[in-house]
């Protein structure tokens, strides 16, 4: 009955705070959309300045997806300097020399691709490689690859902030202490909070996942329900971590200070960036909840696996949540030892 009272109150409060609802429900969609605009693009078409190239090579280059700029040697250099071209291919006494503009890694690798394909085309003896994909397809772009991880990240981030700050507010406005002056048990407070916010977390997970998959058309090979379960577990972890850490913040500003320390590093190790396979670096990621959530999301969305294939990730997430919840119940002793 007491837990129910907390659930009802938390829900009522949150429903009246329109702006926080927007932050939790709409802001992730906005950010995902912007990300999609940035990452979901066609392959880069490089511009290559060419000087004195033999005719067959020029033709071969043009057949590839590349813009060719016929210049003399000095104009080629100029084009690079002005960023009109991504590379300059110069034949000096039939000796090819390639100069990259080099400031943009995407452009550099695009140029390399174009040139190696062109060279291959000129050499009929090269074996024709048949490429097929076990997972994904040749169309799998950066958004598809990192998007699954980022769904997990945004769920984690927004739930952490909103859950943490609202629990913190109970402390700063004295209502937590006031509740503690009633016969309410410490675990009942934590349970009430988890359930109260749980309702919104489910809705948020559905919105973010559905929007990414059905509107932004992110690559999705697995089942929607599996994605939801993973996102929800990740959110519960974020909520229990946020409410726990709020015990160590004196005000909202200090709560925000946890973002660069606790949230941002998790992104680095969650698989958005390829991690070097150095064991100790990998070990850092192993202590971060997002690593497991992201791993499960990737397996489900890109490799099309079911929940049974990610049981370890799921177990770890549940373990993290349980640990944070217990620690939070203990941390509440600060307000009442009983």
């Amino acid at each position, binding site marked *: *009955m*007491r837990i*129910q*009272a*907390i659930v*009802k*109150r938390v829900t*009522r*409060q949150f429903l*009246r*705070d329109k702006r926080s609802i927007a932050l939790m429900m709409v802001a992730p969609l906005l950010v995902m959309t912007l990300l999609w605009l940035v990452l979901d693009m066609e392959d880069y078409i490089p511009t290559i300045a060419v000087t004195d190239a033999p005719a067959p090579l020029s033709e071969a280059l043009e057949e590839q997806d590349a813009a060719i700029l016929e210049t003399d040697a000095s104009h080629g250099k100029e084009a690079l300097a002005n960023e009109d071209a991504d590379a300059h291919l110069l034949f000096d006494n039939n000796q090819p020399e390639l100069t990259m503009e080099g400031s943009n890694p995407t452009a550099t690798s695009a140029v390399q691709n174009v040139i190696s394909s062109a060279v291959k085309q000129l050499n009929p003896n090269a074996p024709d490689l048949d490429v097929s994909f076990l997972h994904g397809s040749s169309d799998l772009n950066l958004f598809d690859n990192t998007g699954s991880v980022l769904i997990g990240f945004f769920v984690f981030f927004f739930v952490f902030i909103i859950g943490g700050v609202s629990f913190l507010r109970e402390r700063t*406005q*004295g*209502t937590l*202490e*006031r*509740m*503690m*002056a*009633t*016969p*309410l*048990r410490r675990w009942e407070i934590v349970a009430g909070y988890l359930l109260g916010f749980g309702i919104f977390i489910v809705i948020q997970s559905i919105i973010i996942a559905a929007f990414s998959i059905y509107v932004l058309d992110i690559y999705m090979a697995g089942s929607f329900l599996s994605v939801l379960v993973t996102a929800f577990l990740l959110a519960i972890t974020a909520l229990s971590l946020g409410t726990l850490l709020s015990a160590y913040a004196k005000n909202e500003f200090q709560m925000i200070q946890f973002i660069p320390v606790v949230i941002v590093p998790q992104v680095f190790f969650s698989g958005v960036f390829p991690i070097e396979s150095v064991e100790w670096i990998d070990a850092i990621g192993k202590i971060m909840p997002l690593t497991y959530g992201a791993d499960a999301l990737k397996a489900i969305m890109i490799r099309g696996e079911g929940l049974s294939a990610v049981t370890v990730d799921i177990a770890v997430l549940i373990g993290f949540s349980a640990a944070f919840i217990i620690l939070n119940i203990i941390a509440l002793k600060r*307000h*009442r*030892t*009983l």
Partner: protein
Amino acid sequence: MSDVVKMENIQHSYNKQTVLKEVDLAIPEGQLFGLLGPSGSGKTTLVKIIIGLLTPESGTVRIEDKQMPSFQLMQKIGYMAQSDALYNELTARENMQFFATLYKIPKSKQRERIVEAADLVNLSDVLDQTLETFSGGMKRRMSLAIALLHQPGLLILDEPTVGIDPVLRASIWEAFRKMQQAGTTIIITTHVMDEAEKCDNLALLRDGYLIAQGSPEDLRTQSGTETLETAFLHFGGAGHAHTGNR
């Protein structure tokens, strides 16, 4: 008359600074008992120890002969904190419903209790407004109403009348008297002398020490002074002067 609250040799400190020292205090049943002392003298700490929010470093608190802290006893205590611990997004009624449920007042009785308590503090007309529209005094009264909801036998009020105008203050004191007649023991903290004057018994607190106890009349005769204020100065000077700033 038996003692409702019995404290023995209470000692407590925050960050190595001792806030309460050697406090022995017995509060008889049915009394309106005042804890008088300047701010920083340890009143709120003492109150928090009585209701069980703080466990003292040493010493014991017994309420109705049972050791605090205990959930069973907490159910019997009404508490009004020094700062208004209320949910501003909710209406007065919703705030009261929430706390009523925490005290497990049955749904069928809640409505009636809420109306009664709101009536006592003159908030009946604004029950369905959110607290964002409330003035400081209204919030103070709201906190008081919440403390009364479950009809506790022991009421502990930390500076209950701060920010309440004289007319309303008088009516609230009248309510205290009524509750007292109904058998409620009331402990209030105050630093206002004319409020202390209205209490049955007083404990004077200074720098964490209990410097004197007794009815306002007793305290005046003991010290040979005419007002409580000079009596306070008398005990303070004679007792443990300048032992710290708490």
